[in-house]
């Protein structure tokens, strides 16, 4: 991912900064600038998510693309945030530890490295809540 493409979403990637529609109260992560329910009547504002949620489904990745190869086997999951939206993320735990319905919370982690001399991509992963 190019530097500019990564840089422009740093607040969202680092801090789970999404949006919500003040008209209907629906929350969005990844952020949307247009509410699909209220359409032009929607009013979108920033919203920082608390970072707690529940595992909806998951997989353990054994064959990854090059940038993620060193992490295998790693856990990816769809996590439902307490505020409503669902996101695709990694859960930092043993592959046999992850369960559907497991409570998780967000942590700041390295996501990928753009080659040996490229930038390091940081972002949000999740860990099990003890």
């Amino acid at each position: 991912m190019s530097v500019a493409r990564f840089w422009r979403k740093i607040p969202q990637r680092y801090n789970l900064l999404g949006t919500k529609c003040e008209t209907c109260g629906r929350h969005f992560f990844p952020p949307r600038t247009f509410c699909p329910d209220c359409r032009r009547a929607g009013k979108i504002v920033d919203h920082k998510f608390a970072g707690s949620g529940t595992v909806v489904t998951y997989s353990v990745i054994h064959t990854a693309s090059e940038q993620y190869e060193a992490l295998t086997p790693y856990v990816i999951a769809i996590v439902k945030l307490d505020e409503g939206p669902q996101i695709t993320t990694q859960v930092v735990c043993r592959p046999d530890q992850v369960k559907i319905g497991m409570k998780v919370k967000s942590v700041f982690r390295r996501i990928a490295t753009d080659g040996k001399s490229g930038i390091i991509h940081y972002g949000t992963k999740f860990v099990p809540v003890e």
Partner: protein
Amino acid sequence: MRDVAVIGVGCTRFGEKWESSFRDLFVEAGALALEDARLSGEQIDAMYVGNMSAGRFIEQEHIGALIADYAGMATRHIPSTRVEAACASGGLAFRQAVIAVASGMEDIVVAAGVEKMTDVEPGISTDALTGAADREWEGFMGATFPGLYAMIAQDYMHRYPLTREQLAQVAVKNHYNGARNPIAQFQSEITLDTVMKSTMVADPLRLFDCSPITDGAAAVIVAPLERAREFTDTPIKVLASAQASDTIALHDRRDISTLDASVAAGQWAFKMAKVAHKDIDMVEVHDCFSIAEICAIEDLGFCKKGEAGKFTADGETALGGKIPVNTSGGLKACGHPVGATGIKQVFEIVQQLRGEAGKRQIDGAKIGMTHNVGGTGATVAVHIFGRV
């Protein structure tokens, strides 16, 4: 709107075709389709070409013009348009051709699909395919394409009674059919054991749950039904053409284990064709992964949600079953040259309806269906065909 018929079909052998270039593939498929329709190039009015990612796979864009040129159409200047919807590119190219003819704008139109995937390292093709999902918020987080379907499988198996063996049976059945299809990439039968002991890709999906990387091209020719007999004794009527969309990311879906776009496109198609499920003699569904076939036969309404595993294990989707699914071998055994797949599905159904499907022929087939999915279900094209 005018009625539309398929008057000619052609398809290359699918596989790892080191000796064939992108151009070689579509020229071969196009020539076969023209020959089949007893047409000459001068009679073609327009072309639509499904292709997902020539930009990533062979670093070539501007595919519409390239294909028209190498098909010998450059001096005739006919319109040639590339259509892209990831793995549903072929299905949408076919739909565009149908719309062009139905509207009266064009008469004789080629719908083709082509993908040349083996000229790059597997890592690059895997990454290119991840572009069918949400690159920013799925791919970047480390979700691979098999990983996304694995999350569908995990959700499905948590909620419904699907065993790992039943899931494997999808691949076993598709390899059995592929072994009876001369264009299939894999022409050998496999056992449950082959699937269950294959390399883990994304838990619970193993290597034999996944469709392969494939080179190949397919082409079909459509014309107004009223003119079809000028070209063929066995025109196949397009009874319905439906297309639906959904959220690009799996995490935004209403239900992880239901492809709502499949449900919508399926319902529209049945309504348009004025046929019922019991009228369908066989269906080609988008089995990019074993779990995708399980979801597809339920989402299209051939069995109830949660019952497709048993339905498959009971042989109801096999040749001779209640509703034979993927008589071609499907994406799993016939191969999945992404942009060509939707056209190859039409190729298979036309062969079945003409009675030309050899060892995998469904006796007395009158009506057939195709189901082509882009990404994890963000685009779906469904078509229904009938003998006339």
